[in-house]
């Protein structure tokens, strides 16, 4: 185990207070950026982008489906890395980040699955197919649910954190294996009726709004993660004096009695 003696700067960076104050300054910008990009991307994608020659207007679901899928997967890695940092350097903040990342990731995975299903109906005539990517997404959802369930199964916050960090790490090692094997499984069993024609080059008019939506989703993810982590910080550090001062500033009157 690495000793923390030479890592003071690292620990300062990992201080919840530092995180709370710094992100507090970013938040307004992040809100504007997220909402602006999301609105732009959605209006562009839904109203202005040309419709797909084969799939018609249902293809517009891609503007939510693809960004959500991206972040769902990236979010799992982020969660696992945060957990690993917590385990190795015993940094409380990174556990808080990990804990916050789990519900966000699970929700994004759900969005990816749901939009995929709704998209599937008009396009392939069915809500659900056991396609490699969809199946992998479903497994990802289960992995997220496992981490969430383990987190809340323990009375002790700390044990819950560490246990789910280990589980997230084990999952990370497994995800590439799961993806590869599901992929392989699918090519083995591919039903003849459904062929996925992935357009190798998307028309720029379609692609540009997608790009905007992907960036918007990254920004959304950062925003949601920061908000959730800040809640976690306040909950965990509620006895610290800086939290007291901060609360008195934010809610000077307390609650209307």
């Amino acid at each position, binding site marked *: 185990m690495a000793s923390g003696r030479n890592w003071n700067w690292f620990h300062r960076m990992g201080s919840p207070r530092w995180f709370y104050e710094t992100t507090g300054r970013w938040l307004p910008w992040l809100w504007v950026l997220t909402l602006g990009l999301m609105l732009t991307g959605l209006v562009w994608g839904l109203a202005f982008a040309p419709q797909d020659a084969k799939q018609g207007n249902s293809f517009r679901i891609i503007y939510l489906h693809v960004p959500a899928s991206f972040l769902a997967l990236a979010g799992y890695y982020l969660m696992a890395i945060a957990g690993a940092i917590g385990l190795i350097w015993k940094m409380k903040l990174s556990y808080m980040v990990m804990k916050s990342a789990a519900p966000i990731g699970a929700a994004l995975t759900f969005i990816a699955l749901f939009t995929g299903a709704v998209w599937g109906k008009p396009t392939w005539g069915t809500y659900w197919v056991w396609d490699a990517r969809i199946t992998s997404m479903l497994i990802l959802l289960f992995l997220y*649910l496992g981490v969430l369930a383990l987190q809340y199964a*323990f009375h002790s916050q700390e044990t819950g954190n*560490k246990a789910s960090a280990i589980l997230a790490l*084990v999952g990370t090692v497994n995800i590439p294996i799961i993806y590869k094997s599901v992929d392989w499984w699918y090519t*083995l069993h591919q039903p003849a009726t459904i062929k996925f024609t992935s357009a190798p080059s998307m028309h720029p008019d379609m692609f540009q709004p997608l790009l905007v939506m992907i960036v918007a989703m990254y920004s959304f993810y950062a925003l949601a993660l920061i908000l959730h982590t800040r809640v976690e910080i306040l909950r965990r550090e509620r006895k610290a004096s800086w939290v007291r001062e901060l609360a008195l500033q934010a809610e000077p009157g307390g609650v209307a009695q």
Partner: protein
Amino acid sequence: MIAGSQGFAGYLRRDLLLAYRRRGEVASPLIFFVLVSTLIPLGISPDSARLAELAPGIIWVMALLATLLSTETLFASDYQDGSLEQLLISPQLLALSVLGKIVAHWLVTGLPLTMVSPLIGVMLSLPAEGLLPLMASLALGTACLSLIGAVGAALTVSLRKGGLLLSVLVIPLYMPVIIFGSAAVQAAVDGLNWLGPLAVLGAMLSAAVALCPLAIAGALRLVSNN
């Protein structure tokens, strides 16, 4: 007689002896495997062509569930009677002692499952050329399942009702094993090369042998903090 030297061999022998003393309990996953497999023809159809088509997958799903059933108890009694605490402070490498326990667990669950699987295969009309691949894939695959399941068992050992949670945790991780396990059998039945999927199972097993004991050792250390 168990030797006092603990470590890998010590835990292997001790757990085998303990399993021998609780023969009835240890046999239950095996009985589960056989019983549930007889439900399949009742639930689907006695038509041997249809059964043959489903047999590789069904046998593998049953074997997976039977292994899962037995995994929960892997560390439970050691946790309750304080042996786990002794394990944590024994002057041996924790990961190796843990591996000894898992090998013992496989010998009393995975191996018997593998041994009776041809019987189930015949009952479910699995073509004869699928029987050897079935045994080979189950032998490698159940070892993977024991190792992966042990990670979940270690993480949930201090929880009173860890059983359901354990399945939520480990079933997603089991998926690659079942894909390649049943694929090997299917390939053999279809007259294709079944050594490919089997080799992948072997690779997964070696990775699991190398990594899972470390994760389990970490998990056991942390849950003992409570």
